[in-house]
């Protein structure tokens, strides 16, 4: 082939590829937004005239992982589908998955706001700074940030008390563990995860005071190969009941492979490990999302708050408890759950020591939300030190 024919072949190939790409880009999009011709709430004349048929509230969700992770993001997406069903024509939802916790997130939130979404949910801790940057530029939009701790007039935080269910599955772990060592595959060393490790340990120690906890960090919310390796190393180190704070089913599947036990986290993971699965500590975001949408629709939405719901409000639960768990343990879990719901039992109550022996809570003292929110210590029985030090 001479140089000239090669060049013209390349040019023709190039144009074909460009054309194909343009066609494909027009047809498919990662975001599930309906056809762009749909009503934009910003087109005021129609909205002002007919209150009976107000344009639907556009709600957008930003997910950290894929909606099919069967963990954290799956729980959010199930809640999204639930409110979609509940509110029908009054809302129009869309989502973007795999939004990284970086400057890219800012771009996604800006994009959502400019497309007319007036209620925007950011479902991961790492979206806090991007949302703080974007919210002031879109005063008409309402931003909801999961698991964060900074708010604005049009940005508020929400969270679930997953430490309650961590405690409950800890009870099961304490009863079922044969080696007296339980393990936790930790994601990122933020207070939320440290709380869950501590709660898990406290729950296990409430039925077996000699329980020890080993923790291995994967430094990511979602990394199945690393989660597998971490779970394997915990099992190699003697742990026989595992808890995870990561977002995939890899830990459960590793436990299944090694004939040990583990818990599902954030969503019901029972079908992924028929023998290893003891229970799933799930989060149900639907009650909160329903409340948020109702407030957005009737105008009572107020920013600058932090909502922290738990078992009582239906945000957290332990489901799919396996038949391998003895009935008396199931009853204990149910009893403890009920006392959490009516407020008579607090997971973090005194006397409480950290694993260096320092007293955190005196007898009859109860941890308040402020202490819980910034929790940065391991309780007695957990091996090792909190990564990043114990700076208070």
């Amino acid at each position, binding site marked *: 082939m001479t140089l000239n024919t*090669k060049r013209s072949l*390349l040019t023709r190939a190039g144009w074909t590829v460009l054309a194909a790409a343009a066609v494909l880009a027009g047809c498919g999009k990662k975001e599930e937004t309906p056809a762009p011709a749909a009503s934009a709430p910003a087109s005021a004349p129609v909205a002002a005239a007919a209150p009976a048929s107000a344009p639907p509230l556009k709600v957008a969700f930003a997910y950290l992982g894929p909606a099919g992770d069967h963990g954290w993001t799956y729980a959010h997406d199930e809640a999204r589908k639930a409110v979609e069903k509940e509110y029908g024509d009054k809302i129009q939802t869309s989502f973007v998955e795999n939004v990284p916790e970086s400057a890219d997130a800012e771009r996604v939130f800006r994009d959502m706001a400019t497309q007319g979404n007036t209620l925007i949910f950011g479902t991961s801790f790492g979206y806090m700074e991007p949302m703080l940057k974007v919210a002031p530029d879109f005063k008409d939009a309402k931003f909801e940030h999961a698991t964060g701790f900074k708010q604005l007039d049009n940005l508020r935080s929400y969270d679930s008390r997953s430490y309650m269910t961590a405690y409950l599955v800890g009870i099961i772990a304490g009863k079922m563990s044969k080696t007296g060592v339980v393990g936790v595959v930790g994601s990122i060393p933020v207070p939320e995860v440290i709380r869950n490790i501590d709660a898990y340990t406290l729950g296990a120690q409430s039925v077996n005071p000699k329980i020890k906890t080993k923790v*291995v*960090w994967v430094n990511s919310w979602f990394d*199945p190969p690393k989660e597998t390796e971490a779970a394997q*190393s915990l099992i190699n180190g003697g742990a026989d009941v595992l808890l995870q704070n990561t977002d995939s089913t890899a830990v459960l*599947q590793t436990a299944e492979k090694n004939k040990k036990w583990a818990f599902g986290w954030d969503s019901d993971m029972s079908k992924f490990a028929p023998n290893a699965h003891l229970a799933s500590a799930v989060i149900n975001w639907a009650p909160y999302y329903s409340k948020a949408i109702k407030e957005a629709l009737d105008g009572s939405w107020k920013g600058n708050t932090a909502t922290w719901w738990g078992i009582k409000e239906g945000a957290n639960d332990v489901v799919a408890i396996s038949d391998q768990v003895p009935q008396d343990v199931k009853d204990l879990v149910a009893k403890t759950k009920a006392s959490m719901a009516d407020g008579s039992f607090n997971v973090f109550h005194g006397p409480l020591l950290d694993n260096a022996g320092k007293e955190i809570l005196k007898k009859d003292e109860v941890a308040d939300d402020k202490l819980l929110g910034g929790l940065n210590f391991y309780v007695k029985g957990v*091996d090792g030190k909190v990564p990043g030090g114990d700076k208070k």
Partner: protein
Amino acid sequence: MDGLELLIAASLNAGTALAIAGIGLLINERAGILNLGAEGMMLVAAIAGFATAVHTGSPWLAFVVGMLAGAALSACFGVLVIWLNTNQVATGLALSIFGGGFSAFVGIPYVQEKLGEQTQFQIPLLADIPFFGPALFRQHPMVYIAIALVAALAWFLYCTRAGLVLRAIGESPESAHALGYPVRRIRLMAVLAGGAMCGLAGAYISVIYTPLWVEGMIAGKGWIALALTTFATWRPARVLLGAYLFGGVTMLQFYLQGRGVHVPSQFLSMLPYLSTVVVLVLISRNAAWIRANMPASLGKSFFPGS
């Protein structure tokens, strides 16, 4: 040290996929082709293999399909780079990105799938030897196949005529062309073989190592495999060693964390990559040595007398 034999076993397992992918890339680079698309090929093969395993329940069939998928993707790369003489670096990167997006798209319906129970393998008598049994002989057959592949490649490269021709093409395609060897065809075959190996590694990861599918699950192992070939100065045995080193350090950091060693977990997380960089720096100190070992035509396009 308690649990050391389990650490060794885990390291072997962790290093196997890297070793297989590294071998594939080695074949490419020995022929003078720099294929940066390893990550993309591994991802496409991972979803192809996983889908096959879901539908047929046979991991071995999944491996075969994975190899075919890897080879198919690398064939596109090969045609672009060998016949149309596009820039190898750019094309390889494009392949990586394409593979990532394509596998994510095709894999959407498979994210919630799971595979059946895995059989535990062990070699009958050897597995019961006190320390070495659990450490070395209770692995999935692919671990041993990887070692066999490395040996086979070493034999091929250094003891056969075909291997000599391949190496010659990697050093100086012009001379090989002058001698009458079909340089482009041989390079394409090398690219296909390399793609098949990367595909096998990808399928192993999604079917055996972490039996599930999520997008991006290869998590950078393709890039590590690329670094491995340089790290190993293009020798097969060293690729295997480097793969086990990397796998070993990866598992070591979890092992240390589990024993409550007071080093920040973030630092331990960094260790595998840090150790790779350190070895690369040590190797690169002697520039002449690198030049002597690197296939001379690596990354350069070949124009047969135009």
